[in-house]
């Protein structure tokens, strides 16, 4: 886990002082609403439907237990005792008082955290694979690279007023768990036949009202040039991205308008001047970044422990269910990654109470080297649990209500805060998630359905990633009334696809019935062991449409 040195600490401390000064001038009426807006946004502060919202950065999803405890403490004293993990691996507080925000940021700085560039038209928090560093299919640990990108993008003097927000995602594994194809820039670390590290650079992906899949700008960038190449990519966007219409201002619109060849030509022309310049990375700098992410001192796990673990799986059905869905294989034999489900009917997806945060921090200390990861599916991961401790951890999680054995199933819904909190939303999304979790709570049914991503967004900004849900639900507003559009066939992994809309939208109360009909078609049509997405790709939209809209 990255630890600040004096430079990092000074920077966040000075950032707090800067924002305190800005807030003081704003409250004194010396800084106008409009002028204050981008300043507060680039410090994570939104003005929301009911109250301000503060989005705290969790760089590439890595969180230490002492940080989680500090967050719990902050939510108790400055908020209502809970927080919300987002699809971009950040944490949102829903009820802070605006004037308290400089104090909150100052407290965050004491635990090496901040809210810098978590909103606004700038380079946002870089996201990554929640199994970085432990995944069996990993070619290169993306975290040191994410940290280098974090530093390069933090308070970058040239890119604080981009045409629109700019999101970078990085994967270093064979399977993409970071959704790199639907980001402004997606990076894939890979090795060529000579074993040299290369970066595949994608640009122009994104969701929102015009969802697009990213295109390849460069297949095989040598790692030394990562930052200079990113600088060229963003500079071309800063200069040529549209600024006349905020709905057409993302880089995807520029890439589409220019065509990928022309965008690439401009980037390469720019890069020709930056290449080999002072931001070129070298081995020593990368090694220094890598030293922040050492292998934890894992104890040896006896072979018999693995056998015992496997035996318990066959003997205990509940445990088996938990392991199948919430436990992921690890590159080190005898270790596993355990996903803590933040999806329960009583809470909005991604919500955690302060008490749960404290409890999870304790679990991280006892079971997983005091570290956690936040997933873009809005769950938490303990990444290094020895197999002979999984049963004990499972029991503790169960007591906390975080052992819901439904990770990756229909019940593991990705959901934005929606109209209950967000001032942009057209419709509520949390109650939709809850009504679906209520309807489809039978575990046997959920497992029978297999892997199924159901994603809900309360408006076309698509924070709930509905375009890439196998089933996607979008809240729309029609003359002041809330309706829901349902799409199917989206997917965020390597064979990425955008969902297709079934047809006319539905009343809120009809959504569970419609989803049920979609599932019935799948169950009736699927070949043995065929996943929902594959069945859809084989039979197309028509059978689903006919069933759902049948008179």
């Amino acid at each position, binding site marked *: 886990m990255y630890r600040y*040195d004096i*430079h*990092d600490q*000074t*920077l966040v401390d*000075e*950032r707090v*002082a*800067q924002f305190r*000064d*800005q807030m003081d*001038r704003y409250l004194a009426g*010396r*800084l106008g609403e409009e*002028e204050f807006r*981008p*300043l507060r946004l680039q410090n994570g502060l939104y003005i929301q439907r009911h109250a301000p919202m503060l989005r705290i950065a969790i760089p590439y999803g890595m969180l230490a237990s002492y940080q989680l405890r500090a967050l719990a403490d902050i939510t108790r004293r400055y908020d209502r005792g809970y927080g919300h993990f987002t699809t971009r691996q950040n944490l949102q507080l829903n009820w802070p008082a605006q004037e308290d925000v400089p104090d909150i940021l100052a407290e965050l700085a004491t635990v090496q955290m901040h809210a810098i560039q978590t909103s606004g*038209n700038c380079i946002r928090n870089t996201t990554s694979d929640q199994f970085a560093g432990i995944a069996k299919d990993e070619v290169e640990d993306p975290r040191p690279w994410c940290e*280098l990108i974090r*530093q*390069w993008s*933090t*308070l*970058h*003097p*040239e*890119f*604080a*007023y*981009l*045409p629109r927000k700019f999101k970078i995602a990085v994967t270093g594994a064979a399977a993409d768990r970071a959704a790199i194809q639907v980001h402004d820039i997606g990076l894939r670390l890979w090795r060529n036949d000579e074993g040299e590290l290369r970066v595949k650079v994608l640009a122009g992906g994104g969701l929102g009202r015009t969802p697009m899949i990213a295109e390849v700008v460069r297949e095989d960038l040598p790692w030394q040039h990562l*930052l200079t190449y990113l600088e060229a990519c963003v*500079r071309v966007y*800063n*200069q040529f991205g549209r*600024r006349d219409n905020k709905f057409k201002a993302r880089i995807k619109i520029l890439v589409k308008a220019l065509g990928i060849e022309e965008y690439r030509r401009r980037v390469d022309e720019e890069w020709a*001047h930056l290449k080999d*310049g*002072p*931001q070129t*990375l*070298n081995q*020593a*700098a990368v090694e*220094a*970044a890598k030293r922040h992410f050492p292998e934890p001192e894992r104890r040896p796990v006896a072979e018999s422990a693995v056998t015992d673990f496997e035996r318990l799986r066959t003997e205990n059905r509940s445990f088996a269910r938990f392991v199948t869905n919430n436990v992921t294989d690890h590159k080190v034999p005898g270790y596993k990654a355990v996903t803590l489900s933040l999806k329960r009917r009583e809470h909005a997806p991604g919500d955690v109470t302060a008490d749960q945060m404290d409890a999870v921090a304790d679990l991280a200390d006892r079971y997983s080297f005091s570290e956690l990861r936040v997933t873009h599916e809005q769950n938490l991961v303990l990444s290094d649990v020895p197999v002979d401790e999984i049963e004990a951890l499972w029991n503790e999680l169960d007591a906390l209500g975080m052992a819901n054995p439904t990770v990756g199933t229909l019940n593991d819904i990705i959901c934005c805060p929606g109209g209950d909190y967000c001032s942009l939303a057209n419709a509520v999304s949390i109650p939709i998630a809850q009504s679906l979790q209520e309807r489809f709570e039978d575990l046997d049914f959920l497992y029978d359905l297999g892997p199924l991503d159901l994603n809900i967004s309360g408006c076309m900004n698509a924070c709930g990633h509905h375009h890439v849900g196998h089933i996607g639900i979008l809240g729309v507003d029609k003359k002041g009334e809330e309706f829901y559009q349902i799409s199917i066939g989206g997917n965020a992994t390597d064979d990425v696809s955008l969902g297709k809309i079934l047809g006319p939208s539905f009343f809120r109360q009809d959504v569970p019935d419609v989803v049920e009909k979609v599932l019935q078609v799948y169950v009736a049509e699927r070949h043995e062991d065929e996943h929902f997405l594959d069945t859809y790709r084989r039979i197309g939209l028509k059978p689903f449409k006919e069933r759902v809209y049948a008179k």
Partner: protein
Amino acid sequence: MPSNVDTPTDQALAHPPVHVNHLLINGGLAVENAWCVSYDVDVLPEQRPAFVPLALWQVNKQDEELAPLLLSDTELTAELAADLAPLPAVSIDFPSFTDGRGYSLARLLRERFGYAGEVRAVGDVLVDQLDYMRRCGFNAMALRDDQDPADALRLLNSFSVRYQTDVEERQALFERRLTNRG
């Protein structure tokens, strides 16, 4: 076309030249603050000295009381940079403080083309942008008139740490950490 100061002034009045109250130069408040900015693309202003739109300046280069104003959508070619190189000053416009193109323009002028004269930020120039502007190579900032010059001086250097290279710092922090330069 351009360059006739005798054209009727009603046209010029549509875009009266802007003269700000407070100008920062090289980290301090300027004593000399004579230059105005004229946005009229067709007509030279009566008020002098003046920054005028690039095309208008190009046909009036001999006039030493004029200097070019680069609008934020200016495409900075090598040819243009060569044209600007001998000048004592150029200005870059911020039509809105949220338009970040001027930062790239200033860096290109300084870093790619080695422009050594004054680079002045004009237009919607706010105190909270000065630190970034300075790092991108602006050494003169014409503050919007509602901005407090005391704030400007206080906020011009808000950070003692930077991760990236920029016009002032030619070594990235990752390099300085390796050499213990700090």
